[in-house]
């Protein structure tokens, strides 16, 4: 047997085109006769539109049309929300593509200009005269729910979008009986996903064919087609959605936005292709944000630190409207994860979805699970402090024992497999935990403040069984499909319904195929992102592409192998039962020289000159795979930080990750996913946060103000793994795309709090900016030893210290 290609860290075939600038994104596509749209956006967080005069804009050079809310009425249906959480009194408020009457956030569309070029469209935007009567606005989700808050939607009293409660056990009784209770108020600040490629769409309507083609930077072209059908009224089979190269999504390209629907509307009105591409500034207000929770969380434990209960009240900002998947994030993907990797008998999540005058919120890498991990890890640290035991010890006392096939948790879900203490043990070894604790004591005496934070996590991934999707109100299935075709030449095309956009499945799915049927990995091409050429699938998010879509590919290959075995037996004039398969060769048992390669068989299947009776020509198969359960990747991460008490600057000294995503198809791709995820989670802990003023204006509206992580501020991330296969997945895989983000915010935050512990700082809001740290240190009464400079620090640049 040759080396398995499954498990081999081969280089990603996507990368040459990506890193040499040859990849073609939506904005790179130019169609004959294409014109350009620009969208006029509300400068107010909340206002009544009293008048709109578009005469001057319509008369401006190059302008073909100007449309307002009145023009789309009755033509373009409102944007639907696709996740109607049951039993939550969810208010599906109207979400018009172009506002009519009232604008509800800075960025809400007011009008669209179509012109021969984008400059002309931008010039004309300035000539649209809109009268606004400003209304009071509200940004904080907790405040928005309070009596007397400005109201966004008539049919959503108190701005309540939904109220969802999930519980297991008897939480109230557990708290009443607890030896120890701890509590915390957590602000999960609003984050701006900032993919490298902003959003973009090209719509091309053919009136002759009655067909709409939409190039759209999306994570899920099939869902986009489905929703486009609902919004435009064009029948689903007459819509083709193409996701060309997509430059990062992180959840922000799940939603179907008003903007591409406006683009489609313009093309259908004008009969020419229309392109709309977001500017970066526009991206910061018009593309969905993430997180935005105000959380009141509590944990109960016995005197030994064994946790007995966790409960929350969460105010989750939805922004001004309900984006496609938004309600599912603070509920199903958050509240159901309150057990994390821990054995907790009593759990209650009490979640309010709240409308606010800000950019709609959607999934953002991790989507609900980073928030759940953060609160569990925060509370676990507090329980440890209350009991007087080390932060690792308190976790150890609460981790679920290793299990390899199904473990129910109190909130009502069933984990597939896990060895949480195994990951933690490995982590502690890598970081030299005991030595660090020893050194830390000594350093503190010298006025140097270093801290270590450990975060254990378990996440719900591989979304998911379609029956469950239906039961929790998701407006679609969550299965995946694959079609694989082996040509006469032995080359292979894999057509998938998922839609990778940077995760590397063009490479890893080719590895699955090569491994299953013994062809060279370079003979396999993975096709995705076009609803006309790929089978149905629900898209790439929730760490599901490899778990669900990859399983569909593997099962398809097994079907093809079975067919090939029948043909090989026929060609070898042997009984099928005597045919063995190894490494792409079918041979007669005991006579290896009597063999047919998969390529031989594929040729015969395709020409069909000599097939066994009842066998159809061709070497093609499809699988529709609906997973029996979610997958539950897990791990343990640690961060080591230094804090300079002089100026509040935090240096991330070390970061170690131990993740278990089951068997790894490509360890290099896994490592890359962990790197990216860890860095994005570090961003939330240390740098990122959408800040609004009292009038709902985004103050962090450019990349000069909103700090995404930079390479030189992040240490070499040490990536390790354990391997615990999922018992129900054909490949045993669990998903890796979100683990980094889920663990790293909690680990880094915990490390900073650990560093500040001797100073007496007990709570801080994220991001942990120098000023917040500096103030907290002073408010805690620390005056320093006068020489707080005596350790390494690097506050940015300009100076090699």
């Amino acid at each position, binding site marked *: 047997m040759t080396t398995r290609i499954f498990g081999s860290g081969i280089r990603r075939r996507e990368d040459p085109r990506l890193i040499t600038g040859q990849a073609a994104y939506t904005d790179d596509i130019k169609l004959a006769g294409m014109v350009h749209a*620009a969208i006029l956006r509300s400068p107010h967080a909340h206002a009544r539109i009293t008048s709109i005069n578009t005469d001057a804009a319509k008369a401006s050079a190059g302008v073909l049309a100007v449309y307002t809310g009145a023009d789309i009425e009755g033509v373009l249906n409102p944007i639907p929300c696709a996740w109607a959480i049951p039993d939550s009194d969810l208010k599906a408020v109207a979400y018009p593509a172009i506002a009519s009457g009232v604008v509800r956030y800075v960025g809400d569309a007011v009008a669209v200009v179509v012109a021969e070029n*984008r*400059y002309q469209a*931008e*010039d004309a935007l*300035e000539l649209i005269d809109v009268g606004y009567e400003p209304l009071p606005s509200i940004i904080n989700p907790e405040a928005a729910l309070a009596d007397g808050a400005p109201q966004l939607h008539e049919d959503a009293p108190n701005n309540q979008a939904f109220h969802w409660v999930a519980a297991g056990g008897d939480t109230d009784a557990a708290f009443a009986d607890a030896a120890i209770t701890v509590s915390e108020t957590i602000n999960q600040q609003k984050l701006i996903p900032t993919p490298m490629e902003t959003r973009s769409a090209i719509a091309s309507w053919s009136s002759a064919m009655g067909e709409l083609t939409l190039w759209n930077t999306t994570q899920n072209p099939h869902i986009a087609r489905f929703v486009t059908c609902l919004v435009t009224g064009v029948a689903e089979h007459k819509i083709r959605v193409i996701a060309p190269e997509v430059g990062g999504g992180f959840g922000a390209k799940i939603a179907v936005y008003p903007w591409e629907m406006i683009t489609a509307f313009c093309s259908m009105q004008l009969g020419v292709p229309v392109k709309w591409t977001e*500017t*970066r*500034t526009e991206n910061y207000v018009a593309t969905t944000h993430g997180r935005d929770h105000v959380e009141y969380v509590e944990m109960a434990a016995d005197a030994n630190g064994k946790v007995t209960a966790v409960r929350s009240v969460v105010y989750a900002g939805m922004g001004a409207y309900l984006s496609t998947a938004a309600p599912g994030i603070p509920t199903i993907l958050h509240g159901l994860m309150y057990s994390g990797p821990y054995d907790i008998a009593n759990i209650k999540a009490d979640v309010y979805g709240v409308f606010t005058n800000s950019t709609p919120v959607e999934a953002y890498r991790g989507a609900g699970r980073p928030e759940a991990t953060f609160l569990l890890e925060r509370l676990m640290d507090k329980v440890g402090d209350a009991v007087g035991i080390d932060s690792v010890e308190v976790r150890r006392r609460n981790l679920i024992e290793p299990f390899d096939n199904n473990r129910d948790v109190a909130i009502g879900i069933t984990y597939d497999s896990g060895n949480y203490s195994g990951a933690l043990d490995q982590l502690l070894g890598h970081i030299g935990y005991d030595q660090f604790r020893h050194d830390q004591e000594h350093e503190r005496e010298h006025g140097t403040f270093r801290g270590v934070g450990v975060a254990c996590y378990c996440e719900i991934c591989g979304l998911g069984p379609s029956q469950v999707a239906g039961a929790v109100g998701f407006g679609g299935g969550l299965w995946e499909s694959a079609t694989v075709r082996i040509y006469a030449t032995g080359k292979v095309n894999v057509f998938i319904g998922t839609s990778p956009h940077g995760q590397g499945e063009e490479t890893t799915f080719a590895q699955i195929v090569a491994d299953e049927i013994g062809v060279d990995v370079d003979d396999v091409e993975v096709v995705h992102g076009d609803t006309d050429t790929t089978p149905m699938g629900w898209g790439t998010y929730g760490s599901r592409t490899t778990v669900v879509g990859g399983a569909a590919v593997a099962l398809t290959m097994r079907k093809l192998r079975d067919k090939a075995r029948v043909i090989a037996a026929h060609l070898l004039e042997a009984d099928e039962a005597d045919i063995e398969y190894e490494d792409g060769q079918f041979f007669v048992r005991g006579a290896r020289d009597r063999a047919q390669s998969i390529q031989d068989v594929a040729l015969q299947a395709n020409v069909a000159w000599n097939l066994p009776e009842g066998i159809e020509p061709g070497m093609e198969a499809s699988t529709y795979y609906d997973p029996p359960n979610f997958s539950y990747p897990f791990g343990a991460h640690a961060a080591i930080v230094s804090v300079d008490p*002089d*100026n509040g*600057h935090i240096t991330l000294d070390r970061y170690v990750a131990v993740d278990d995503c089951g068997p790894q198809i490509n360890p290099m791709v896994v490592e890359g996913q962990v790197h990216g995820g860890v860095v994005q989670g570090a961003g939330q802990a*240390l*740098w990122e946060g959408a*800040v609004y003023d009292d009038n709902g204006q985004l*103050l*962090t509206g450019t*990349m*000069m*103000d*909103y*700090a*995404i992580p*930079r390479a030189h*501020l992040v240490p070499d991330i040490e990536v390790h793994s354990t391997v615990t296969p999922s018992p129900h997945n054909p490949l045993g895989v669990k998903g890796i795309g979100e683990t980094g983000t889920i663990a790293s915010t909690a680990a880094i935050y915990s490390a900073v709090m650990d560093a500040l512990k001797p100073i007496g700082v007990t709570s801080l809001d994220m991001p942990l*900016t*120098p*000023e917040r740290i*500096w*103030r907290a240190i002073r408010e805690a009464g620390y005056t320093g030893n*006068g*020489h707080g*400079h*005596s*350790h*390494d620090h690097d*506050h*940015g*640049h*300009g*100076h*090699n*210290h």
Partner: protein
Amino acid sequence: MFAADFEYRKAGSIAEAVQLLSDNPGAKILAGGHSLIPLMRFRLARPEVVIDIGGIANMKGISVSGDTINIGALTTHAEIASSADVQRANGLLAEAAGGIGDPAVRNRGTIGGNLAHADPASDWATVLTALGATVSAQGPAGSRTIAVADLIEDAFATVLGENELITTVSVPALAANQRAEYAKMAHPASFYAVVGGAVVVTMDGDRCTAASVAVGGLTPRPVKAPAVEQALSGTTLTMDSIADATARLGDDLSAAGVDIIGDVFASADFRSNIAPVEVKHALLHAIGLAHH
């Protein structure tokens, strides 16, 4: 992010650039473009005419003449950072240049453009003020020399006339007994200085015989710190004496009568408190008291 209409003119010489400025009131000079182009794309600047000086050869390059480093205004930050001549004559210049923005910014942005734009968060303005640098400015009436300390009047405002442009930046070389450092708290998004402190100390053994200190980032223009300088001069530099000296920075900021800048990342109060820390860090590094 689409600029309004403008006319593009390319100047072949300094004289032509000055003439074009005179002929086109309100015209903007395009050097590296890292400040002007974003402003135009945001439509915050709408010059009718943009004069590209990028092709004027004698505004580029670095030469050392005696104790002076002459840097053409169009020289990029990256060129300054990597210049062996600069590293030899004045290491602080190279170090400060290497800490501006990111590689893309350093490869395009120019020292003259940076000074003329007069962003309060500019590293150059603070560093060159402490170093006692001057600029040569060319206008219709000829050339004049302006100390960098006097060049910037206020945020985004210089003493340059409408028709004047910076042609050369001249910086004294450091003497063998001089140490210079710059420490900044960089904004994590832009890497601009939230607070920057630049110091030049002349040493006689452990004793400081003269000091030049400037801070920027927190003020609309760089501010010299005479009270700190006096406290350092004639003093043996120790951790304690440095801490005592930098504690006087508040007096200098008050005396300068400037507003302290605050924003969502760092309030004015925080910046005021951090400024002495950055100056202290710069001094400790300058004299080798800080650990690396």
